[in-house]
């Protein structure tokens, strides 16, 4: 065997290892929980989508209801004992920090578990945190369509013992009064930073930021 042959064999082995490694990595990566479509910030959110949900007072809530007021949208479900109360507590504290300026904001809590979260349950649950936070639910197919158009991921996960929990997006959406997605919040962000983001929403659709 010449040196040239040996080199060829070694490089081929490297090539095979690289391909095999990539395939393994690709297969090991968690199954695509990333929303398929990122909302276009230049257009009103869910523009052109058709879904009809119900707010906690049993009133219809459709894409046409997204514009009108600056809106803070939180996603979760009422049977979630740890992180959903943390998210709603974060929003309730944000509203308190804004004081009277917070009155212009519409805080919404959209369920990712419409099977269990009825409008009445959503009303009771959101009132525990701040009566200004309104719950939104709907028929499962309508809720799924709405979450998809808002770029929110959710998945039912069966638990030992028969019940289920929901994996879902953690992002809080900030919409200006024209219904455009202006920014997002993460509950790990400092309260001051969150207040500044919401103040930019309150400044109106034309304001920078």
């Amino acid at each position, binding site marked *: 065997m010449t040196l040239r042959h040996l080199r060829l064999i070694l490089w081929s082995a490297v090539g095979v290892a690289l391909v095999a490694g990539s395939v393994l990595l690709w297969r090991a990566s*968690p199954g695509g*929980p*990333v*929303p398929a479509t990122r909302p276009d910030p230049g257009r009103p959110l869910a523009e052109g989508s058709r879904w009809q949900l119900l707010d906690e007072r049993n009133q219809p809530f459709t894409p046409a209801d997204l514009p009108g007021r600056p809106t803070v949208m939180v996603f979760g479900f*009422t*049977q*979630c*004992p*740890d*992180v959903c*109360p*943390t998210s*709603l*507590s974060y929003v*309730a*504290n944000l509203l308190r920090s804004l004081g009277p300026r917070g009155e212009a904001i519409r805080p919404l809590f959209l369920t990712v578990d419409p099977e269990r979260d009825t409008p009445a*349950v959503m009303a*009771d*649950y959101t009132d*525990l*945190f701040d009566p200004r936070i309104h719950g939104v639910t709907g028929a499962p197919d309508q809720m799924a369509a709405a979450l998809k158009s808002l770029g929110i*991921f959710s998945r039912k*996960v069966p*638990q*030992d*013992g028969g*019940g289920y*929990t929901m*994996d*879902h*997006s*953690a*992002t809080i959406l900030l919409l200006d009064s024209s219904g455009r997605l202006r920014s997002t919040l993460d*509950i790990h962000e400092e309260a001051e930073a969150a207040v500044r983001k919401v103040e930019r929403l309150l400044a109106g659709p034309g304001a920078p930021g």
Partner: protein
Amino acid sequence: MKSILTAGAVLLAACALPATAETVRAGDLSIEQAWARATIPSAQTGAVYLTIRNGGAQPDRIVALEAPVAGHATPHETKQDGDVLRMAETGPLSIPAGGALEMKPGGTHIMLMDLKGGLKPGQSFPLTVTFERAGTLAVPVTVGRAGAMGPE
């Protein structure tokens, strides 16, 4: 008669519970700040948080959990994977030698399942914790607001 005696014992135990979170000790372990969040009356689930310090030279671990307010109680953990929040049962929780196990919102917690009538602010209940080494003890848990981020 036996049921009256049992009811009496439970009542006495309930009265003996302090109104605020206190430190409970068992062997080398001390358990602090056991608290839970209020829920709606129809809630099936709740969460308890506590801190366990281990002053000893041996690690210990929680092998069983029980609370009269719930059908069962198991350790859970919330994890954020990119933008996605997931909650899953953890294995038995360990308390390292000379270290601590701290539970807090958004991380490790004890999930109460099949709640019997929800949890109200100001309520307290015993959480029975069985450790592999330190044995079994009742930890008084106080219920704070639904949006509480720590013991109140």
